[in-house]
């Protein structure tokens, strides 16, 4: 009798950070979870950073707590302060990141993908005035679990 092989853990769906209001039709999908198969997909051509909204659906567990905090004047003040701090921090981080990406040496990643995907990639990137390299980089950044 053989033991069953371990089941790969559940992962976030690759479109978890994409706002549903963005047209997914405009998004090209390529397989990244299992590089040699075409079964699982990761979106391209959509900025990987989550779109900033005040929607409560970003962190369901936190929302109720935030709501409750806001019920007190002090809580509301604090949460505003925190938001401002976070925004400033995020801005700094984004600037740093952009600089880093410009300066960093780029490496050549070779993967085999279906020609249709490559075609879609090229046309998608061209239509958005960007390059295939930029698109792939942003996807990999978004996909990376770190």
């Amino acid at each position, binding site marked *: 009798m053989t033991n069953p092989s371990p089941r790969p853990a*559940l992962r*976030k*769906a690759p479109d978890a*950070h994409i706002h*549903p209001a963005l047209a997914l039709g405009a998004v090209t999908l390529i397989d990244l979870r299992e590089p040699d198969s075409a079964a699982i997909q990761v979106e391209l051509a959509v900025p990987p950073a989550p779109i900033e909204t005040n929607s409560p659906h970003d962190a*369901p567990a936190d929302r109720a707590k935030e709501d409750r905090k806001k019920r007190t004047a002090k809580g509301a003040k604090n949460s505003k302060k925190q938001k401002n701090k976070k925004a400033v921090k995020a801005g700094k981080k984004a600037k740093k990141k952009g600089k880093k990406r410009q300066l960093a040496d780029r490496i050549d990643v070779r993967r085999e993908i279906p020609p249709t995907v490559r075609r879609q990639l090229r046309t998608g990137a061209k239509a958005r005035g960007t390059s295939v390299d930029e698109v792939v980089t942003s996807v990999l950044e978004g996909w990376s679990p770190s």
Partner: protein
Amino acid sequence: MSSQSPIPGRRVIAALSLKGGVGKTSVVLGLAGAAATQRRRTLVVDLDPQANATAALDPREAPFTASDVLFDARPGIASEAIVPSGWPGTVSLLPSERALEHRAGDASPDSAGRLRRALEGVAEDYDLVLIDCPPSLGELTRNALFAADLALVVTEPSFFAVAAAQQALEAVGLVREHGNPSLQAGGIVANRVRPTLPEHVFRMDELRAAFGGLILGALPDRSAVQQAQGACVPVQSWQSHGAKEACLAFDALLKRLAPRTGSEMSARSVTPTPKSVEIPAQGGAS
């Protein structure tokens, strides 16, 4: 319980309606709270990208959601996304998030069975599984109906109620014909009923005339329902006259939909007692 149930030995109930805002989520929460007071192990599956049930159940964390589960769709994978709710006692949650909307667009000929597959071997851990559907009869609701053995149509005593309930029942019939033969129409519950309003009395009569025995009853319109949701506690913990009335109605509804089985009652002796709930100060009359 039907022996042909897709998840044998369980009651898996999907609350649905094409119409929005009629109280699907409130009914699911009310039933979950009623089941928890009986210490029945209850799983709420939030299948609505609005994630209202998730917010009200206030889990400490929700690293994975129904969106990830439906995307993956391996048998039993739902177990990795289920978290304890913030409510006291025995209510667990398969949370939702906005991105679940993407799964609504993933329709393919066999995509409606994804939730059912993901719950294989998982639903058995619960006495009751309640699925909160979005206000549509699309892909997510189809997934709920494929996984359920009982469909509960929620409606309001309004001009549009009969048509909306009819459409929901048609959807249930279609899923039973094409994919889940063990799905039963559990019935129709009218929510937010105010018996003092002539319009509501008229619409309730109209619903009874149209659906007869399928009408399971009426849930009263009580602000305690909203107050409890706003404080992320079960209405069963809310201290007011209106809350008590609502609880009685939820108890009665639960009894009709999923009466306790002998094995559940005997198993309760090993279930931990739920913690007491702190009632917020504003828990006055409703």
